[in-house]
């Protein structure tokens, strides 16, 4: 495996991660979302491993395995359980229709590219060009949180943002210190449990996981 080939492979993985971020925006079924999220995690894990191999930073292998365990197996499993337990298989209602969301997404990608262009000029890491993709993944995750109504999609958007952050860390600096990564992983796990508990309560209170229901919680008038 040559260095440039690794870079190419990483670019391909970055492109696929970007695609999965868009797929998250486009997907209507909750289970589909969970699957795509797992795929995104897998791609992320692969990309981390590739970067780890190419850069010689071997702690990235651990990150890669951690990602694999957390984002490909554990979190999707928790979400899967949740979806089954709460019996939510309906289509997700979007606040903004899908094509418009896609257009907004493209605008955000271009915006990210525009933002990271100066960094691209300065950095000499082989992963520098994927920074734009990482930033775009964060933005798209946020866009997903903005445009979807269902609470589970909010979480998936949040987790997708985290994926983007992780990717940004690997592509900007070849990863965060191990301690930080472990901490973040633990945080995510706890967040997932807390979300699960919250969903359960929201579901029993409102008999729905539509977050628009929560508008009732605001002040009167």
């Amino acid at each position, binding site marked *: 495996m040559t260095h440039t080939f690794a870079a190419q492979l990483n670019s*391909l993985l970055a*492109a696929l991660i970007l695609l999965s971020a868009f797929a998250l925006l486009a997907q209507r079924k909750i289970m589909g979302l969970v699957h795509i999220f797992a795929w995104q995690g897998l791609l992320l894990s692969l990309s981390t491993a590739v970067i780890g191999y190419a850069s010689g930073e071997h702690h990235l292998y651990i990150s890669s395995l951690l990602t694999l365990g957390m984002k490909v197996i554990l979190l999707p499993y928790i979400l899967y359980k949740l979806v089954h337990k709460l019996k939510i298989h309906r289509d997700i209602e979007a606040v903004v229709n899908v094509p418009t969301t896609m257009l907004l997404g*493209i605008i955000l990608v271009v915006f990210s*590219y525009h933002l990271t262009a100066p960094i691209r000029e300065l950095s000499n890491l082989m992963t520098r060009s994927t920074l734009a993709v990482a930033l775009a993944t964060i933005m798209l995750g946020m866009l997903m949180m903005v445009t979807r109504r269902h609470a589970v999609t909010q979480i998936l958007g949040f987790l997708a943002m985290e994926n983007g952050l992780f990717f940004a860390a690997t592509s900007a600096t070849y990863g965060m210190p191990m301690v930080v990564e472990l901490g973040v992983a633990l945080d995510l796990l706890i967040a997932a449990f807390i979300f699960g508990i919250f969903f359960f309560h929201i579901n029993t209170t409102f008999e729905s996981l539509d977050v628009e229901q929560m508008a009732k919680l605001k002040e009167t008038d």
Partner: protein
Amino acid sequence: MSLHPFVIELLQFALLLGLAPAFAGWVKVLKCRVQGRTAPGILQPYRDIRRLFGKDIVLAENASWLFRFTPYLTFGVTAIAAGIIPLISVDLPLSATADVIALVMLFGIVRFFTALAGMDIGTAFGGMGSSREMTIASLAEPAMLMAIFTVSLASNSTSLTQMVSVMAHSEFVIRPSLAFALAAFILIALAETGRIPVDNPATHLELTMIHEAMILEYSGRHLALIEWAGMMKLTLFFALGIAAFCPWGIATGGDTGLLLLALVALAAKLVVGACIMVLIETGLAKLRIFRLPEFLGSAFLLATLGMIAFFILE
């Protein structure tokens, strides 16, 4: 032994004109096999065309000259397109006639006149078919051009010969942009050639047909020409996809050995392509017409992502 370019050109003409029905027939056979039905045989399209040529024409009372002219034009333009896309050799004299944008527009002519012919009789079906066809086309065309532009950007040209030779002879590089563009192209090709999930070429059910609705009133040799042109169009889209995205093995000159090799490579690629299409067609259900914008929108999205990936990642 080396063949003169004009000979290759003629060869390609003959190849496409002659083998397009066989290819279409083979796709049908493959599809039947996959779906567990009895296949009609690979030569069935030839038999259909011959039968139609032998039949008399039945024209509606108020059909105008445009209605009769359209089949010839359709066939003519498709044939011209067949001479432009490099299939087995880069060295095609006609290839410079039209670059890829012009090629898309040539298909545009076919569509334009077919749609007009659909409206000529004045039935509701024809109008419906035309209306839907033009809607789909207008949404597919931007995506098509974006997909092709991505390849153009990579090869720095819109000329098909140039694109093919650049793609065929550059060293192997993973290009996510091209992968996206190819995915987009496949979606658009499904839409443009009227396959599932956009249109069903086998149906004559009133509410689902699009392309068939336009040519419902045709008969005899007119229908034969249109059907033949349709099969050619299907083959041409495969050819275009192969030329733009995976032209490896294509001959640069007129050397017979290389040409034979290119022919084998082409056949193999067509087989693979047909399998992919059959799998898609079998795996998907036909979409409702108003879900199509999303289908084509995702094609556009993929194409755009391809272009963005080209600038960001390459």
